């Protein structure tokens, strides 16, 4: 156990930091610190251009194996990459669902053809992905998926019908991976399949969900006899649950460190405000700022333990607490930001009908952090049942 990086790694840090300094400017300057959670809908076109700019220099998917177009970076170098990216204020990756979820899933479970077809678009920043998991009546309960798919007898194509919800960036995406029920009459975890569906077709409709911020980061996606080629199924029919569960493991990787640098940036802004308006002298605010700082440090150490630990993608204890911890921490940070601002916390930016400042937007959006991707309550169930071995809830009577 040691906490310092090798000199080789430190050299790599110089390299990526230098590249970002040279490149995240000019037309891209405006993208600094934008497009993060709660802000994902902002500057989509510009961020796609930035993604392609990074791709040209070989900085997309740096953790992927070289054979699939990545840089094959070590865990330590990935840590450094994400830290420096966030430190430089690098904008939210438009391609993060492709890079972090769709790609790794295809690499792990996809056919050779699928790898050839889909991975280059992700690496090059030319094809974008969204995920079709949650459904209105299923919520956090993936086993309750109602979206159906069957194969057209003539064309062999998959025909998908149903509704997905909380799909971020759906209107900016070219492809969606969809969990659908392909065995009629199946229930629970059985009979689900993992399909790759093109978004540009008449059978797919995207409706933005207006959030409490007044903006729309999430969408509902309606599939009405949407089609995709027979080959666009990952794994075999009926393996959807297995693949979806593995994918949950991919979500908790080195990118968490990038998220933390984004949080650090928010905390820095709050500290700046506190020093500016004198609330940094308020002992209660001091305690809360110190507490936020501590939480962020702990998040980092938790991540480092996750990354240094079991590499099989199995959920370790420290991984299981991750979502619950950061979501709760972030919601508290939002409240802290407003309390540091004091009376000014209410006042909107000039212009526009409901023009939230960055901190206001962060504050309001954090209320969704403890809900989407598995509510805090679901997370606690998972921890109690899977990590502590406590019994499951009785099902309904």
């Amino acid at each position: 156990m040691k906490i310092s990086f090798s000199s080789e790694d430190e050299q790599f840090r110089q390299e990526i930091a230098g590249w970002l300094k040279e490149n995240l400017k000019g037309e891209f300057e405006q993208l600094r610190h934008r497009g993060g959670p709660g802000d994902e809908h902002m500057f989509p076109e510009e961020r796609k251009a930035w993604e392609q700019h990074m791709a040209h220099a070989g900085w997309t998917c740096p953790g992927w194996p070289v054979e699939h177009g990545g840089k094959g970076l070590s865990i330590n170098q990935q840590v450094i990459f994400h830290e420096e990216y966030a430190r430089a204020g690098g904008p939210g990756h438009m391609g993060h669902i492709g890079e972090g979820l769709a790609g790794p899933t295809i690499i792990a479970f996809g056919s050779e053809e699928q790898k050839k077809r889909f991975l280059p678009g992700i690496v090059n920043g030319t094809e974008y992905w969204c995920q079709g998991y949650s459904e209105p009546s299923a919520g956090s309960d993936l086993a309750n998926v109602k979206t159906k798919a069957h194969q057209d007898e003539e064309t062999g194509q998959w025909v998908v019908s149903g509704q997905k919800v909380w799909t971020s960036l759906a209107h900016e995406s070219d492809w969606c991976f969809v969990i659908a029920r392909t065995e009629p009459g199946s229930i629970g975890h059985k009979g689900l399949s993992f399909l790759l569906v093109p978004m540009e077709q008449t059978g797919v409709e995207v409706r933005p969900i207006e959030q409490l911020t007044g903006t729309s980061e999430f969408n509902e996606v309606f599939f009405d006899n949407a089609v995709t080629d027979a080959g666009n199924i990952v794994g075999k029919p009926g393996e959807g649950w297995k693949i979806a569960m593995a994918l949950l493991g991919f979500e908790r990787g080195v990118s968490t460190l990038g998220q933390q640098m984004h949080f650090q940036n928010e905390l820095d802004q709050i500290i700046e405000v506190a020093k500016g308006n004198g609330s940094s002298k308020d002992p209660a605010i001091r305690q809360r700022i110190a507490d936020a700082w501590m939480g962020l440090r702990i998040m980092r150490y938790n991540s480092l333990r996750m990354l240094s630990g079991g590499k099989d993608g199995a959920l370790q204890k420290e991984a299981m607490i991750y979502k619950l911890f950061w979501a709760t921490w972030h919601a508290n940070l939002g409240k802290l930001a407003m309390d540091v601002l004091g009376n000014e916390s209410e006042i909107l930016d000039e212009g526009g009908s409901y023009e939230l400042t960055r901190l206001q937007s962060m504050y309001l959006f954090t209320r969704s952090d403890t809900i989407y991707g598995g509510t805090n309550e679901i997370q606690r169930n998972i921890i109690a049942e899977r990590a502590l071995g406590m019994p499951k809830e009785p099902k309904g009577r």
Partner: protein
Amino acid sequence: MEFAFTDEQEMIRDSAESFLQDVSTSEAVRAAMATEAGFDSELWQKICSDMYWQALHIPEEYGGLGLGYVELAILFEEMGRRLLCSPFFSTVALGVNSLLVAGNDEQKSTWLPQIAEGALTATLAYTSQNSWDAESITAIAIKEGDGFVLSGQYKYVPDGHTAGLLILAAREEDSSDEEGVSLFAIPADTVGINCRWTPTMDQTRKQAEITLDNVYVESSHLLGEAGTAWPQLEKIVQLAAVAVAAEQTGGARQVLDLTVDYTQERVQFGRTIASFQAIKHRAADMMLQVECSKSAVYYAACVAQEALFSNDKAGEEVAEELLVASALAKSYCSDAYFHCAADSIQLHGGVGFTWEYDPHLYFKRAKSSETYLGSGSYHREKIAQAIL
């Protein structure tokens, strides 16, 4: 000692409840909050002429109903519950209270009947800073001839851009803290006064900035004595804090009801989510906070009643009690409302953070009302000063 509502008070609550359920629907709130004024003037006139609420605690001699602060707290609670968009809070909790506490008979006779008729709205402006103490008053009043010249700025003024009558605090030059403070009642259309709407995160209660550019007013606009008005202003603010706490209590009640209803309908894992202990226990904690909020507010309202209208009790004792009772109510209810509204979003799950569902309206109101007149910890420190 009788800590239960009278039949008359229960009647007032029942009629407020059914009236507001009809007129202050989610749609009505959303329509009103999207406007600059922030309220539907037809509805306001209907309240004034049909319900006569704006006259509730104005003494009969000034054209009011002559009822008390407990009755008023009931109204605030029901309004907060329905997020009623109206100039009621500013006009009654700030305007009427200011005139009752600090005005002389002539001033009361001038303004209160107009308010009681529904012809005039009012508000109070004092802070220009990020705080609510005496030192936050920076506007200057200079004696000139038979009157005063006022200059300076006010921020975070509820309905400051629509109120007809402004109660303004200003201080003598070179004075500081609680010294040198005067209160004035000045029509908003007086020359040199500029009122500008400042859009806010909570859209259900509007705020404004007011600037005074050498505004000349006659001495008749001075409430009480020049330079010694801080104790009066402090009392007005304490009375207003009780009103805010009552609104918060109503809001907390409503988010609890919304949450219990929603969780009874929503099915997950084959059960209504209301059957899960995680949900039930959060709801139980919400109810505990709601009931405690009520107790805190009703008690504070009783004290406010004595502080405003009772002559037979030792004034200082009541003043001390109002200080702690209002601080307690504002502190407890601010925190309780925030927690209940936040939990309401959480227990609504995905729909909880959509614009379409109502919890976010309450959540935003909870935060703005927590901030307005000082947060829970601010008021706890006031209590600490009183007891330590």
